[in-house]
């Protein structure tokens, strides 16, 4: 690139920063200040009786946070939960794409019906399941028992599977929608070409459609992983994180430290560590992506 051109570009870039001002000011106010406050909290003896956190206590909050086995358990739960949910959502979504694509292409409005769950607030979704999974008044156990299946889906033996199932049932439509859109984008021309070549439906799916959908699968998996990792609402409503701590996600763990135990400093220390870890991960992922894609 010529020097002069680069110089022009530099001034243009400087000017273009104006476009970012609004966003940056907003973020500085709404997230910057709270982040600084949190940083201070994580190093101070903050308590509900002293929200200014007047004394500096060094890394005490961090030491306490790391030393608490429950934090590691919650972190483990969230990671495992996110991985399982992501795999299931992508897998089921993909299966749905291949099974339903032919009928939905002809009657697109039907897709909307499958999208409804993801429009519902997860907190309310939790309350709904509390209603329908109850052994006595819920409709699900009533039918499961007719079929001779286990009925206590919120019982200690099934609770883990149940909270996963609820997450998966609510968000598989999301995975499905993105992958369906990707699938439909290859429909027209490619399909005709393939048909001319004599490829049958199944073969077409395997050989041609799948590679085209692949990037969308990665994206869906990424988004769903992030969202499942910070799961809070429906589990909190259904189990309160129990029995014991068995369904305590890291978000629920932080919430409880914060509000129920009033250990504000420790709760904030956990979240600061989480913030750093996720920044590092994202940075690493981006570096990886940049290296793979020739600039």
């Amino acid at each position, binding site marked *: 690139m010529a020097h002069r051109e680069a110089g022009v570009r530099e001034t243009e870039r400087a000017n273009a920063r104006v476009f970012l001002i609004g966003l940056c000011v907003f973020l500085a106010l709404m997230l910057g200040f709270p982040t600084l406050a949190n940083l201070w909290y994580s190093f101070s003896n903050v308590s509900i009786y002293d*929200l200014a956190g007047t004394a500096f206590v060094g890394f005490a909050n961090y030491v306490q946070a790391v030393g608490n086995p429950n934090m590691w358990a919650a972190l483990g739960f969230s990671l495992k939960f996110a991985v399982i949910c992501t795999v299931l959502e992508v897998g089921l979504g993909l299966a749905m794409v291949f099974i339903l694509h032919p009928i939905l292409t002809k009657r697109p409005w039907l897709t909307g019906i499958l999208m409804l769950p993801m429009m519902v607030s997860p907190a309310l979704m939790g309350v709904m399941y509390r209603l329908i999974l*109850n052994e006595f008044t819920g409709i699900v156990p009533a039918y499961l028992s007719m079929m001779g299946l286990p009925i*206590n*889906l919120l019982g*200690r033996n099934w609770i883990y599977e149940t909270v996963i199932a609820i997450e998966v049932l609510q968000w598989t439509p999301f995975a499905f929608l993105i992958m369906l859109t990707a699938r439909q984008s290859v429909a027209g021309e490619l399909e005709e070409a393939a048909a001319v070549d004599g490829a049958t439906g199944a073969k077409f799916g395997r050989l041609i459609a799948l590679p085209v959908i692949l990037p969308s699968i990665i994206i869906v998996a990424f988004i769903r992983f992030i969202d499942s990792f910070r799961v809070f609402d429906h589990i909190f409503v259904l189990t309160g994180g129990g029995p014991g*701590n068995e369904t305590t996600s890291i978000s629920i763990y932080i919430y409880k430290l914060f509000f129920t135990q009033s250990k504000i400093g420790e709760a904030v220390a956990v979240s600061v560590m989480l913030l750093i870890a996720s920044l590092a991960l994202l940075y690493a992922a981006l570096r990886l992506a940049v290296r793979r894609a020739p600039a």
Partner: protein
Amino acid sequence: MMRTSRLIAAAGAAVLSAALSTAALADITILAWPGGPAEAALRKVVDKYNETSDSKAELLYFSRDNFFDKMLADAAAGSKEFDVMLTATYNVGKYAPFMVPINDLITDDVMKVFPQSAIDSQAYEGKVYGIPTDLSLHFLYYRTDLIDELLSNDDWKAKYGEISEKYMGTKMEPKKPDDWTWDDFMASALFFTQSINPDSPVRYGTVLQMKNLLFNIMIWQGSAASYGGNWMDADGNITVDSDAYRKALDIFKKITEWEATPGDSNSYEYAEANGAFGTGQVAFFIQWSAAYAEFVNADDYPAIAGKFDITHEPAGSEGPKTHFHALGLGINKASDKQDEAKAFLAFLASQDAMSLYAKEGGQPPVVEDIIKAVAGDRPDMLKMGEHTGKYGIVMNGSTAAPALGVYSNMAENFTAYWNGALDQDTAIANVVAYMKEAYGK
């Protein structure tokens, strides 16, 4: 601050109300415990107050699930959104720094309305922070039709003996719920569970509430107390690691293992337990006193209408015990309307207000004379007063600032034990360690 926020929300209205509020007595907002007959009753009392007072009172409710979390954030930040706020026996110590003592309101007239114990339930370190409004304790709710049959049917009696011998090691005789020990409670739970006794007309003997929730520990701890268990001794030493606690923990553990309680009891709280008993699928259970007013409504609970009764919790070695606490209303320290808030509380503590409150469905811990006067409308209140006096216990240290955290910690560890996620020693050790740290022992 308040005005700024109102300006942004609705500028015109704010200016108007600000102008008015400087002239006359300001209106106050009351944050109260949500739901049920108590809410309905308090609305009646507030209506009455508003008829006569220049300062109008308005009620405010949060949802139950996160009530204390929300109130904590508000209190800690010095919120002025409410002038009168909720107090409870189990967290009066925690919220005391955010409230104003109202000892001067407790006049001789007030002492004619409330017994000393009720006033004490709102006190922390000698200062009174609230006017008690609602007493909560636990009853054993049982199905009269089933128990009558059990006591009269010889086949059932024989089966009862057989089952108790098989599961509990001794051949037992059915008894009246009034005379139950925890062993009778367990044996009856076995007997009425269909998977154990196919002849049982109901699916489960009992229903336990074992969601990881602090209120559920309150329900359970009557059993620990009935064996002499306590949070700490007179010197403040933590005494949770005791035979009494182990025995009481085992009661829930065994019933869970026998599946004499629904398999998803680990997700149960008040509503689910009521649903199980209210649909007629459970023979008896320990539940909050508030449920009585619900069950008597035959339209809402047709399956058990006219077929249930209440008595005290089963006895341990120290006789029957029940946890009890009182909710009350006190003054938010950050409020600008201290005088108006006090005026309302003074009204609330009057005999007229409390009688009205009781009649409309509230559960005020008032003196016997007042209870008797409203007994026609509220038969359950007689038993509530009687039980609190005879069986009520307040664990040592359970009104201090860390109490709410202790309940939560117990909920976390004990529900883990009942559901097989922790062994008993670890669960108890965790709780003891937490309490030692919380109380600085």
